[in-house]
């Protein structure tokens, strides 16, 4: 079964507009490893942030957790748009989470759990990743609370060298 519907939560038609709004590209592939740009909790079409502010000041840790969860959905949507299906993910490999922290907030890792939990809820074992969490003070796009960048390993049959995109149905072996 494809994981596609799991993240289709906003319920609206989305158009691929990543390139239009950013001079960056959201995805670059090299040697079977895919590097995904940092994504915040943003509306996929308008880049309007869904959350703003620092955790521990404007936002509570729970809201931060939700924002990090939105990051996972935004990232996975970018991947899905690029490759047609989340079955292209053999294994999420690494995530770098930046958490916008207020003065006395000391647990950015609990906020980043929002990303990690959503990742494994959608992808299960394939969603596990090495993670680095960093508390920062200033973030782009009107001070979004979280931003996550991700590296994942591409499943067989996907990518630049693959002749045709598969529509899914495969089960991928668990690594490690």
């Amino acid at each position: 079964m494809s994981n596609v519907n799991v993240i289709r939560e906003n319920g609206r038609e989305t158009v691929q507009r990543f390139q239009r709004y950013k001079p960056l590209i959201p995805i670059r592939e090299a040697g079977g490893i895919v590097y995904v740009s940092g994504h915040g909790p943003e509306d996929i079409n308008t880049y309007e942030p869904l959350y703003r502010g620092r955790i521990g000041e404007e936002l509570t840790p729970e809201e931060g957790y939700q924002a990090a969860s939105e990051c996972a959905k935004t990232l996975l949507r970018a991947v899905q748009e690029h490759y047609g299906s989340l079955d292209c993910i053999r294994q999420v490999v690494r995530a770098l989470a930046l958490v916008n922290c207020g003065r006395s907030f000391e647990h950015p890792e609990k906020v980043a759990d929002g990303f990690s939990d959503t990742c494994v809820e959608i992808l299960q074992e394939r969603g596990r990743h090495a993670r680095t969490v960093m508390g920062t003070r200033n973030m782009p796009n009107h001070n979004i609370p979280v931003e996550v960048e991700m590296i994942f390993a591409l499943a067989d049959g996907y990518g630049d060298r693959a002749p045709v995109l598969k529509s899914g149905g495969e089960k991928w072996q668990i690594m490690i």
Partner: protein
Amino acid sequence: MGATEKRMEQLGITLQQTDWRGKGAAEAIFINDILYISAHYPVDENGRPVYVGRVGAEIDEETAYKAARLCGLNMLRTLQAYIGSLDRVDYFVKALCLVNSAGDFYNMPPVMNGFSDLMVEVFGHRGRHARAAMGAYVLEGNMPVCADAIVRIRR
């Protein structure tokens, strides 16, 4: 649903659903000969912080150097657990080192040499790596430093 699952359904055997919450962040992920290691902190064997505080405020540079070395030691333990023998380390590729810095502290690279020196002591030339050392505003549990790494492993 697969044939086995259908048969289990007929037999009335149900499996408990896995609760994936909290299991997303692994200590390391091994893919295509490369081991991606999560951030390691200066903690003891029970995971309790050994050093707490910001570098340049509660923690001075020398103590932070030791904390960075402890990050490295914890990472070696994880490495050993994942690949059996440290002989299998082909070479270190890259490390990202974060220093929990007070307002006017700018000496992140000397602090993180605590981590890098250890790797060169242990692995010699193979322990050298590309590195980024940067100041963070907050780290987990207000610990002074953390380091992650990408390591190439021999088959």
